[in-house]
């Protein structure tokens, strides 16, 4: 039943290193993933052999760089089954993708009294941009609550998503709870009231096969660095008609058709939303990461994640005084597992685990409203990716027992 991908570990040089004399056990892939040599080499080759600015200059290197950059866009588009590559906008990451929607669509369409519907499990990246445009436009935020078993309460959809709602923005998968968002229900509810739907897919795309046309949302945002690629680049996918009706959120070179002294006209998609020199090497790395994931197969990535998450949930359940925040059913969740242990503060846990070579995140995970819902100041979070193996979960569990001993938890 276990999906064994352990042969892939050899592709990740960092997994060979030690921390405090112990083999590194990297359990923080929800924050950022490690990078395979295929991604590192692709970026290195780009700088060594092809480096030039894109979309300008008629010389060979410039043409190569442009082709390489646009090829990365085609790979991203294919990976999520976008209708055309022009629907994929390269951004700095999920955060800037959501800001692009907030400022490019929200700022120009929201009116006083309009509403933006979110859930209480959102990352700050899918809260604060909406607060910023709400402040300017006079719109208000409304939230779908969670159920006691850490799922979005879809029974509240009719109450929250009413005719005042113009934007429904929600997490595809919670970075804290692991909970998979109610994609179909939220998209249908948005459509029923004429609102646009936005999926924060930073955690979903790396771990789950994605077909944007099947999901049916208007926008979907994700980051390369959470799916084996480099930092500094991500993607905003938008349905073509929505992108066409949007204004640019940033102005500058590259994104214009013509510039006069007092006005300008915009370039066609996707360049209208890519002001300035883009992160070209990062796009190359993004493309290589997608090739890597596609070669493994996203169904196997998902199966592996379910298996290792099941193993983690079962082993964590053996530890007295440990509380997991998130659904137990691996069909409803991904591999971000948040927990607390007795009265040991998560930062103390992280320090103790680090001494055992185990890297976990401790804190509010950029989800302070959710921490208040859970009534905890912080949690520790172990999160998994395709290179993690069950024995690493066992190292985590042993280190948690050590934490109990150090703190004298009876």
């Amino acid at each position, binding site marked *: 039943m276990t999906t064994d991908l352990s042969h892939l570990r050899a592709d990740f040089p960092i997994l060979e290193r030690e921390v405090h004399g112990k083999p590194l056990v990297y359990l923080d892939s929800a924050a950022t993933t490690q990078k395979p040599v295929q991604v590192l080499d692709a970026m290195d080759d780009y700088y060594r052999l092809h480096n030039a600015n894109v979309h300008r200059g008629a010389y060979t290197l410039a043409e190569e760089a442009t082709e390489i950059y646009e090829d990365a866009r085609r790979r991203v588009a294919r990976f999520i089954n976008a209708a055309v590559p022009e629907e994929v906008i390269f951004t700095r990451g999920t955060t800037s993708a959501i800001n692009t929607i907030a400022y490019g669509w929200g700022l120009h369409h929201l009116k006083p009294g309009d509403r933006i519907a979110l859930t209480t499990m959102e990352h700050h990246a899918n809260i604060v941009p909406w607060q910023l445009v709400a402040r300017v436009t006079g719109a208000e935020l409304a939230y779908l609550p969670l159920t006691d078993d850490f799922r979005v309460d879809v029974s509240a959809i009719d109450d929250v998503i009413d005719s005042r709602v113009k934007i429904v923005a929600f997490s595809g998968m919670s970075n804290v709870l692991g909970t998979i968002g109610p994609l179909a229900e939220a998209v249908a509810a948005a459509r029923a009231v004429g609102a646009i739907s936005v999926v924060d897919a930073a955690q979903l795309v790396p771990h789950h096969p994605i077909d944007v046309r099947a999901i049916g949302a208007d926008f979907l945002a994700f980051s390369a660095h959470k799916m084996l690629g480099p930092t500094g680049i991500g993607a905003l996918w938008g349905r073509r008609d929505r992108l066409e009706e949007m204004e640019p959120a940033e102005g500058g070179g590259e994104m214009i058709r013509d510039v006069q002294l007092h006005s300008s006209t915009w370039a066609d998609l996707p360049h209208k939303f890519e002001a300035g020199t883009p992160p070209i090497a990062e796009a190359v790395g993004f493309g290589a990461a997608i090739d890597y994931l596609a070669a493994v197969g996203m169904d196997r990535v998902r199966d592996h994640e379910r298996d290792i998450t099941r193993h983690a949930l079962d082993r964590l359940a053996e530890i007295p005084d440990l509380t997991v925040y998130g659904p137990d059913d691996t069909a409803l969740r991904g591999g971000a597992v948040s927990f607390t242990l007795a009265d040991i503060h998560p930062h*103390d846990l992280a*320090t*103790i685990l680090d*001494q055992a070579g185990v890297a976990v995140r401790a*804190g509010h995970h950029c989800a302070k409203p959710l921490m208040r819902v859970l009534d905890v100041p*912080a949690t520790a979070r172990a999160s998994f990716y395709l290179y993690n193996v069950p024995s690493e979960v066992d190292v985590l569990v042993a280190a948690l027992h*050590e934490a109990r001993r*150090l*703190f*004298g938890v009876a």
Partner: protein
Amino acid sequence: MSLDELYRQVILDHYRNPRRSGTLAAPDAHADGNNPLCGDEIALDLTLRDDRVTDIAITGRGCSISQASASMMAERIVGKTLAEIDGLTHQVKRLLDIEEGDPGLDPERPGAVLGDIESLAGVRRFPVRVKCADLAWTTLAEALASHSENR
């Protein structure tokens, strides 16, 4: 083993039973301190008479190091003058390796100079945790500074 050094019994005792926990009805000075990165929080009230701290009360939440350090500080500074507190603060910062120099402990008699605070010496081997131990002291300095400004 350095983890046992970091999480000494005395630290866990202060974490679980913080001394002078609470608020004061009529404080002469107040400050809120927090480490935005990790979320440790401390709120500190104190009263003064003739440059001498006469009472202190602290509420907070956060990791064992931040909360134990606050409890140890509260226990230590009542009855001390501002000059004495300034000296003590420098000793603690040297103990934590925030400032260069010898904290002036007596190796023969552990705890003789700074009391329970000396048990925080293990924190210096965990650089990312030093700011947890320092939070109480920076918050105290802020409270005292705001008091002297108001006078």
